[in-house]
C-alpha cells in the first residue's frame, strides 16, 4: 500500500466530540472548592467587621480632635487624653527591635545555614530556637524584669523603654532567626555552586547570591515580627511600663530620657479598655486604629521592598 493520506479511522467526529465534551460530575472537587472559598470569606468577614467596628468606634475622636489626640498626654478626662507618650514608647520599641533583633537574627540565621557544619550540635541549636519561638511572651517579660530592669539597671535605668525595647527584641529574635533561616534554605543550591565554581569565597557567595535571593523572605519575616513586638502588652507590663497616667512627656526623639519610665500603645489600650467611663471606649478604638495603621505601614513598606527584590529575581 502506498503511503498517502491516512484513511478515515472509522470513528465519527461526532462520537469523539461527545467524549471530549463529556462533563463528569466531580462532587469532591466542588465541595473542596466551596469549602476553601468559605474559609477565605470567613476570615475576610471577621476582619472586615473588626476594622469597621474599630474605625466607627474611634471615628468621633479622629474627626473632632485628631491632632490633639496624637499630641496629648494621659489625663483623667477622656476629652483631653492623647497618645503622645504611648506613641513615643512604641516608636522606640520599634527602633530597638529593628536595631537589635534584625541584625542579630539575620546574622544568626546566615551562620546556621551557610557557615555552621551540619552536625548534631547545629540541629540541637536549631530545634531549641524553634522552641524559644513558642515560649509565651509573659516568660520573656519575667526575663526582661530580672535581667534588664534589675541586674542591668545601671545600663537601662530600670523600668525604662530601653529595658522594654531590649526585652521585645529578644522576644522576637527566635522568630526572626527561623524565618530568615527558612528563606535562606529556600535558595537554590545551584546558585551557590555557580558562585563557588567561579572562585567566590563563602562570604562572597553569601553576599552576592544567597542574601539577595533570600531578601524577600527575610523581609517578610522580620516585618511580621516587628508587628508582633509593637502589639505586645504583657511583657511590657512586667518590665514596668506605666499603666495609667505618666507624669513626664519628653519629645519623640528625646534620647536623653530613654531611661525614664515609659508607656506604649498596647498598654494604653489595655488601660483605657478597662476604664468604666464610656468616653474612653472611643479613645480605645482610636488607639487601636493607630496601632493598625503603624503595622499596615510597616507591611506596605515591606511589600514594596519585596517586589523590588522579586522583580530582580525573575
Amino acid at each position, binding site marked *: 500500500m502506498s503511503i498517502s493520506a491516512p484513511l478515515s479511522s472509522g470513528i465519527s467526529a461526532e462520537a469523539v466530540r461527545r467524549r471530549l465534551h463529556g462533563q463528569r460530575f466531580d462532587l469532591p472537587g466542588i465541595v473542596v472548592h466551596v469549602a476553601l472559598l468559605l474559609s477565605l470569606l470567613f476570615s475576610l468577614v471577621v476582619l472586615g467587621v473588626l476594622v469597621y467596628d474599630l474605625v466607627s468606634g474611634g471615628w468621633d475622636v479622629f474627626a473632632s480632635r485628631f491632632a490633639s489626640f496624637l499630641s496629648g498626654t494621659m489625663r483623667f478626662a477622656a476629652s483631653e487624653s492623647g497618645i503622645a507618650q504611648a506613641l513615643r514608647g512604641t516608636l522606640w520599641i520599634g527602633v530597638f527591635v529593628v536595631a537589635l533583633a534584625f541584625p542579630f537574627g539575620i546574622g544568626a540565621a546566615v551562620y546556621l545555614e551557610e557557615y555552621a*557544619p*551540619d552536625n548534631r550540635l547545629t540541629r540541637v541549636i536549631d530545634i531549641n530556637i524553634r522552641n524559644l519561638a513558642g515560649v509565651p511572651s509573659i516568660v520573656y517579660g519575667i526575663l526582661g524584669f530580672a535581667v534588664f530592669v534589675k541586674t542591668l539597671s545601671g545600663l537601662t535605668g530600670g523600668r525604662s523603654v530601653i529595658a522594654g525595647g531590649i526585652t521585645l527584641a529578644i522576644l522576637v529574635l527566635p522568630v526572626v532567626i527561623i524565618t530568615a533561616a527558612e528563606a535562606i534554605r529556600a535558595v*537554590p543550591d*545551584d*546558585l*551557590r*555552586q*555557580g*558562585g*563557588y*565554581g*567561579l*572562585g*567566590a*569565597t563563602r562570604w*562572597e557567595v553569601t553576599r*552576592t*547570591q544567597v542574601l*539577595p*535571593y533570600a531578601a524577600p523572605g527575610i523581609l517578610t519575616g522580620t516585618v511580621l515580627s516587628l508587628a508582633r513586638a509593637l502589639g505586645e502588652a504583657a511583657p511590657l507590663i512586667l518590665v514596668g511600663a506605666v499603666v495609667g497616667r505618666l507624669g513626664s512627656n519628653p519629645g519623640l526623639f528625646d534620647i536623653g530620657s530613654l531611661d525614664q519610665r515609659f508607656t506604649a500603645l498596647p498598654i494604653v489600650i489595655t488601660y483605657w479598655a478597662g476604664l468604666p467611663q464610656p468616653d474612653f471606649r472611643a479613645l480605645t478604638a482610636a488607639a487601636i486604629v493607630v496601632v493598625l495603621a503603624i503595622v499596615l505601614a510597616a507591611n506596605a513598606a515591606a511589600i514594596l521592598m519585596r517586589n523590588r527584590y522579586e522583580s*530582580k*529575581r*525573575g
Partner: protein
Amino acid sequence: MSRPRGTTVPTHETVAAVSTRPDLRRGDEGEGAGSKPLVFGVEDVSVYYGGFRAVRNVDLAIGQQEITAFIGPSGCGKTTMLRCFNRMNDLIPSARIEGTISYHGVNLYEDGVNPVEVRRRIGMVFQKPNPFPKSIYDNIAYGPRIARLDGDMDELVEQALRRAALWDEVKDRLKDLAMGLSGGQQQRLCIARALAVDPEVILMDEPCSALDPIATGRIEDLMEEIKSSYTIIIVTHNMQQAARVSDRCAFFTAEVNETSDTRTGILVEFDRTEKMFSNPADERTENYVTGRFG
C-alpha cells in the same frame, strides 16, 4: 586498563610523597598524556559519599591543551570525578576523597591549598544550566568582579559572549534577566561566564545536553578553538561528540559490589580517543562505544 585489584580499599602512599613527583603516570596507562605537558595527575583516587564508595582507584593523566572526554553510563561517577578537579566536592559535607590529584605537580588536596584559588584557575560548567538571577551582563561580569580583574568590563563581557557563540543573540538585551533565555542559551551563558575569568582549565559536565545540534556544533567549534589556550575535561553521553572533539577519552562504568549491592564507578580504559573508538583494549569499552552496552 583492567589491572586486577583487591576488593578491599587499597592503602595509599602518603599524599606528600607523590605530590611532588613530576610524572605521575604509573602502571600500565603508560601512554598517558603523550608529548603534552601534564596538567593533572590522578593517582589511585576513590571518592566516598559517607560510607558509600562512588568511584574507586582511578588513575588518569590530563595533558595541557588537550580535550579529555569522560564517557560512561549514568551513575558511574563521571560528575563525581570531575568535581574532584576543582574541589567542588568540598561543598558536599559527606564527600571524601582518597588518593592524590596533582595540578602541575602540586597535590590539590594537600594542607594549605585554598579551594577558592583552585576554582579561580579551574572553572566549571554544570550539568544543569544555572544562570544567576541577575542580568545577562552581570552574569558574565560576576567572576571578573569577584576576582577583581581590571580592564574594560564591557569588552570582557562581549569577548566571553562571543566565544560562547551567544553574542549575536543577546547583544541587544544585555540588561535583561538571564532567566529569560532559553535552556540552550542559558547553558552557553554559563560557558561564557566560566570563560570570563580566563581559567586555565575548564571542566564541562555535559554542556550540550540541553542544546540543539547547531548550538552543540558551535560549542564544539568553541572547544576546538579555545583548546590552544585551555585544558578541557568534558563529560558527555554523546559518543559522536566524544569522538569528534576529544583527544583522549576515559571510559567509566559502574561495577556492582556483590556483598553490599552498591554500585561503584571504575575507570575501565583511558587512551587516545582514536584508539578508544577504533580499537579499544577492553571489551566493555567496545560494547559501550558501539552501543552494545548493557
